[in-house]
């Protein structure tokens, strides 16, 4: 799951990136509205944390431009102004949720998880696929109740497949969602991660669809 964090205050931005990364996501960071708009417009993010008071282009404008261009990723607005006028304006501009500063990192993460789940059409915090369960709150996966030991990259691949279970996910899509923008990407590493995951999971859970990508096959 790849998250865009847009915040102009460097210390707070660093804290946000650290907190979001610690929860098992990968993050890109933008410090002004113009960069944020470009990144959100060109990269496939699973969610965005958007500060409203931004230099160069304010957050509401960035959000409106994304929505006008058909970008549907969930957006969590972060702002200092606790007025309902601004909340309504934010939601009407296309935001999915709203958090006022100062905030607790736990609350931000909980809302982010809820947004990503709802965007995938999932109701609960626990995603289930056959014997495999993924708890998005604790970033833990279990098979038939047995906890799996996963590296952060393995977790990210599995989490993305779980959020899109039943769908075909291409290799390039996986790369885009598990690496940050500035990371040196190598499509071969995906095969390595999937190979390691297959060893830890029940056989045939991750199907390879020839020429297209991977699919998580869940039998009830």
């Amino acid at each position, binding site marked *: 799951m790849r998250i865009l964090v847009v915040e102009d205050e460097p210390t*707070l931005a660093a804290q946000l990136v650290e907190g979001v990364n610690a929860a098992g996501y990968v993050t890109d960071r933008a410090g002004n509205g113009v960069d944020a708009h470009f990144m959100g417009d060109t990269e496939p993010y699973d969610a965005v944390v958007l500060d409203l008071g931004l230099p160069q282009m304010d957050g509401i404008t960035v959000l409106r431009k994304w929505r006008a261009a058909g970008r549907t990723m969930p957006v969590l607005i972060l702002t200092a102004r606790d007025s309902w006028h601004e909340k309504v304006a934010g939601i009407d501009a296309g935001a*999915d949720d709203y958090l006022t*500063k100062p*905030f607790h990192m736990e609350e931000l993460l909980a809302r982010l998880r809820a947004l990503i789940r709802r965007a995938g059409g999932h109701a609960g915090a626990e995603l289930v696929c056959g014997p495999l369960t993924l708890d998005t709150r604790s970033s833990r996966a279990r098979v038939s109740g047995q906890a799996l030991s996963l590296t952060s990259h393995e977790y990210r691949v599995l989490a993305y497949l779980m959020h899109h279970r039943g769908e075909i996910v291409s290799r390039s899509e996986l790369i885009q969602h598990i690496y940050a923008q500035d990371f040196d990407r190598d499509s071969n590493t995906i095969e390595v991660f999937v190979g390691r995951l297959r060893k830890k999971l029940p056989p045939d859970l991750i199907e390879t669809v020839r020429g297209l990508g991977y699919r998580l096959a869940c039998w009830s």
Partner: protein
Amino acid sequence: MTSLRFRLLFGTLFWIAASVLVAGWGLGRLFHQHVSAQFHAELQTHLDQLTAHLEIDDQGRPTLNLPLGDPRFDKPFSGLYWQIDRLSEAGVPASGAALRSRSLWDQALAIPANALADGEVHQHRIIGPRGAMLGAVERSLTLEDRPLQLIVAADERLMIEPVARFKGELWLALGVLGFGLALAALLQVFVGLAPLRKLQAALGRVRDGQAQRMEGRFPSELTPLVTEFNSVLMQNAEVVARARTQAGNLAHALKTPLSVLANAADAPENRNTDLARLVAAQIETARKQVDYHLARAQAVATARLPGARTPVEPVVEGLLRTMRRIHAGRGLELHVEPMPSSLAFRGEEHDLQEMLGNLIDNACKWARSRVEIRAHDGQGRLLVSVDDDGKGVAAGQRDAILRRGVRADEQVAGTGLGLAIVGDLAHMYGGSLMLADSPLGGLRAVLSLASAR
């Protein structure tokens, strides 16, 4: 005397009445003088005629060689008389008239004794036959050594009647004139002061929030006033907008560092230390204070601003869209009773959003499954009620909730200032917030505000 219209009307009507009265009196007097002069000139003519026809017959008695032309001299008590008296040596009339008109019948005219030079004419008012007041002219002359006194008299009614008739018609005409002038004055005041009434109406629309500025064309005397007033209104709006922007900037400037502090205190290596707890508690206090005072400062600036009118329906709908997103996970049923689209709040949109947003958000936080919102106009008051089916608030605790910073249950996220801010804002707009039991089982919050037409 406080009404301009009354002042103008009073002055004009007073002068119209005075002019009509003076004109009536003066014209009546003038006509009376004219008729009186004519009356006496006619008597003089008759006297001259009498003098011309007078002769002394063989027996030495005065006689007329021709009857006088006017037939009224022959009709008894017709009101026109003549008489010729012989005068004694002393110039006093001898008893018994020598000669008189038929119209006098058996009566005689009595002239006060006076000595006249020959040919001199005197005027008298005497009492004649049947007690009528007569105007009389007399002349003494000596014919063939006989001193004679010639009198012609006429009933004054002959003069008074046309004057009275004239005066009647004069007053009627002046009455009509006065009435016409009064009507014209009324119309003039009405038309002349129409722009002032228009000004009043325009001001009323601004006060009721139906207009942002005074619209319309006004006479050149009023234009400076209107322009000045509009520019004051615009300046006020700018001041409010600036205050709002500054409040927002201040919030941003304060809260971003607070966020950094809060996150640092909450970092795994610091968590659960005394310092972290202290910092977290103080940040929470600071945030509450900033929110509360920013909301208040904005409302203070806007509550007195005229010209604000906010339709209720779009505000409620915008808030519901927001609530459905924010409370998406709760599966709440948010129900709004249909309300007339003309329903409006006399005040700023921001403040109505703030009040209703806090009320509805509060209801959503506490509701088990359902929130109901109703708004209607009750005798010039905008009444909005928000019901929830949560566990409600005990009657004894309701006052405490409305006081600043107290929260009924510290477990549910929120500032604890929400309802207190609503109460404060409502108060600033001359309204109120009441808490009651809801038929749904939870809390009912009723907001009463000034409604705009």
